[in-house]
Every structure is written in C-alpha cells, then in structure tokens.
C-alpha cells in the first residue's frame, strides 16, 4: 500500500521545482551558446566574403585602368589591391573610382595618404584624376 505522506509530497515538489528551474536555465544557456556559435560562424563567413568581394572589385577596377592604359606597372598590383577600401558598397582602388567631387578632393578613404599622389576632380570630364605631388591639372 502506497502512502503519500506530507514529507514525501514536499520532497517531490522540491525535486520538481529544482528540475524545472535547472532545465529552464539549461535551455537558455544552451540556446544562447549555440546561437552565439552560429552567429560567429555567420560573421566569419560574411567577413571572408566581404574581403573576397573587396579584392575582386579592386581587381576589376585595376582591369579597367589597365584597359584605359593608365596601369602599366604589374609590380604594384598587390599594393593597390591591399590599399583599396569600400565606400558606400563601392570598392575604391584609386582616385578614378571616386564618384563625387567631394569624395575625390578629400580622398575620403585616404587611399593616397603616405604616397606621392593625390586626387583632383576634373570638372570638364566629371571624373577624378590622379596627380603626382608637385604637379597640378
């Protein structure tokens, strides 16, 4: 004959409560850690893809300059790709990639900081030209 004493019932209740509480926290703990892991994975992939996109776009920019005949030194390709930066979703590899006079004149991304070149906006052709320091358009 099973007797449900008051103490036994209380023990069962405590066990139940402890189980529910631990399970509750365990659920959030596991959910949080797994979500963080997945998010980090996503971030790593996105970062790698962004870097790929930047380099690929820089290569495309340089291809354009090569076809225009303004890029003639194959040894500077790596440096130009490394120096390229993104501005509003567009990869800027050199002055010619700036689309507005303001960005051009300011060299917003500082592409040419520390080099012997600078950017000048050509109002006639509506394009950004690269000039060597000490020269003017």
């Amino acid at each position, binding site marked *: 004959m099973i007797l449900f004493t008051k103490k036994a019932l209380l023990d069962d209740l405590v066990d139940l409560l402890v189980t529910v509480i631990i399970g509750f926290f365990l659920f959030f703990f596991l959910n949080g850690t797994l979500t963080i892991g997945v998010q980090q994975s996503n971030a790593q992939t996105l970062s790698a893809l962004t870097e790929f996109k930047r380099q690929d776009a820089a290569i495309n920019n340089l291809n354009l300059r090569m076809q225009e005949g303004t890029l003639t030194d*194959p040894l500077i390709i790596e440096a130009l790709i490394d120096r390229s930066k993104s501005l509003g979703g567009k990869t800027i590899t050199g002055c010619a990639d700036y689309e507005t006079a303001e960005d051009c004149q300011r060299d917003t991304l500082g592409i040419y900081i520390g080099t012997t070149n600078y950017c000048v906006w050509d109002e006639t052709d509506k394009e950004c030209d690269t000039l060597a320091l000490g020269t003017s358009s």
Partner: protein
Amino acid sequence: MNTKATVIYWTLFVIIAAVGLVFFFSGQDLISVQSKGLWSVNFLQQNYLPAEKELLQIHIIAGKAGRETALVLAENGGFFPLTVSPCGAIGEVNLWNQGERWCFPDIRDSVSFLTKEKLADQLPEVLFSTISYDKTIFYGRGDTGEIKTDTARYFFDRSFAVDIGYSFEEYVDLQSAAQILVTQCRTERDLPSCLEQNLPVTWKYHSCPSPEPIPSNLRTLDFCVLSTGVQPDQFPIQYEIALDFTPLEIFSVAGITAAYDGDTNTYEIRFLPDNEAEEYTIYYTNWKGVQGKSGSIEDIFSDMPAGFGLYQKSITLENTVELNCPVEKEKGKVYLCVEGTLEVVYVLSDQEIVSGETYLTVTSNRDGGESAASGFIPLME
C-alpha cells in the same frame, strides 16, 4: 530523498557535467562552429583570386609589350629591329621600295615574333601560341594555368586581349600613301615641289620634331611619319621610312642652249643637270631631218640617209657632281656652274659645224640605258 528523486537529481548533474565537458573540450569559443561554406570561401580566396591577379598581371605586361612592339617596329619602318629591308636602307632607315620593287614589311609576323620574345623574358612561365591584333585589340592565346592548394585545383586560360589604343593596321594606310606618293612624284623632275604639294601633313622629311627642307639633289628620301591613330602625348608613335623616287625611265635632258663664241670659234653648250645620270651624250648632225624630232636617238637617226655628206657625231661627257666653273673654260671639258640656275657647261669645238645647218641635242645615260632626246636645237653664230 527517495530513489526516484535521487535519479532525477543525479541525472541533472550528469547532464550539466556533460555540457561542461563539451564546452571545455571544444575550445576557446565555448562551442566552436566552423565558418559556413569554408571550402568555397577558401577556394575563392586561395585559388580564384590569385588566378585573377595573375591574369591582370599578364594583361598589363602583354599590353606594355604590345605598345613597345609598336614603337620598335615604327622606328624600323615595320621591319624587325636590326634587320635591313630587302630594298636597302638610307643610314638606319629602311627603304620601302627600290625601282619597281616594293619591300613592305610583314607586320603580322613581326608583331607576333617580337612580342613573343618580350613576353618570354617577362612571363617565362606562360607559353603563348598565337599573338595577333584586330584593330586596336592586341591579343594572344596562352596556355592553361593552375593554382593548386591542399583542397582544390583551379585551372584557367592565360590568354589575353588588351586595347592598346593603337592599330597595327595603320601600316596598310601608310603603304598605300607611300605608293601614291611615289607614283605621283617619281616622274617629276622637280621632286621637292611635287613632294611639297603631295606629302601628307603627318609626313616630315628626315625628322618629326625638326623637319628639314627636301633637298633637290636626292631622290631617295627618309621620312618621319606621325601616327594618326593614337594620342601623341600618351603613346607617341613615329614611323621611320625611306622611299626611292628614282624615275623608272631616265629623264630627257632639259634646258639645252648653245652660245657661239666668235673669238675661239666654239659653242658653249648648256643644259640642266640630272643627278641620277652617270654621263651625258652630246649628238650633233648636219642632217636637217632631225628638226622637230624627239625620242630615241636610235629611232631618230635610223631614217638618216647614207651619203650626201651627212654626218652624225657624239661626245660622251662624265656627269660632274662638284661645282667647278672657271671664267675661262677649256674646250672639251665639262663644268658644273651656278649662274642663276645650276647648269652643265661644255665647250664644243668642231670645224665641221656650219652655223644654222648643224643641229644638236643631249641625252643622259644611266645603268646602260639612254634617255630620249627632248629635241634638236640649231647651232647659230
């Protein structure tokens, strides 16, 4: 705690311990989840991008080689460097023609050969089979490149096509302009005037930056021709070519005059010099039938009847090149004088000459051939 509670109690601890162990052994980031598309991303970064960079490098080097080839060929009149045209050369400038023969360079072959040589120097690891051009596009068929990593191999075509802003087809226009020019001016005695009228504006005698006046005593001339297909400040192409305007037939001698000198009983014969002539021949006769006749000396005198005291005499004169014009001229000598115009002068003395009944003409000779007689003049006192 009853048995049931104990089981649940310890089970929970076992689960927590298991989770803890998983976290502990899975590394620093609690649970390490690898990047999504890791192989794809690695492939793009380690195989595709290096291939794209290599292709860009090939294109830059090939474009540069194409432009350098264009410059080198233009400097040699389209011929391979250090080779001489089969028609010869003036100094270092290759002739495109000689007499009736044209010696145009084979541009397509020269471009291919010269560029392959340059690319073999700068891109020894790439093998190019065909190199040619179409308008301003300079292209080459390359071999297959391979980028190999631990997890992938990427094959790509290392061919190139670059717009070099210049077309080798400009040689076709140049060749046709040269042919027109030679046809127009080869037969003209006054070559400088003819060239001044017909020379295209981009053609300069001897030098592009400082063109010289066309000399009147030369008929093989070297020209510098500015390219019209490229921007001069970006890609200055200057063709160096030479053309031979030597007439296919010898010019007949012009400006023949004869002046009688009563003191010495001689005739001073004058006529315009011809730089191409090796020698001149003076013909004189007492046959009246030559009056109004011109053409081949052989044909003219073939009609002369034999006998009747008729004679035909000739004197051969060396073509003197240096100016030599004393006031007192000796009989039987040739002089080159400048008295207003440049003239060849010869003092003729013959007791058989009868004033008004003797007729004279002069022909020039070159390479065993003789010019036509332009006409006979009477010798008058």
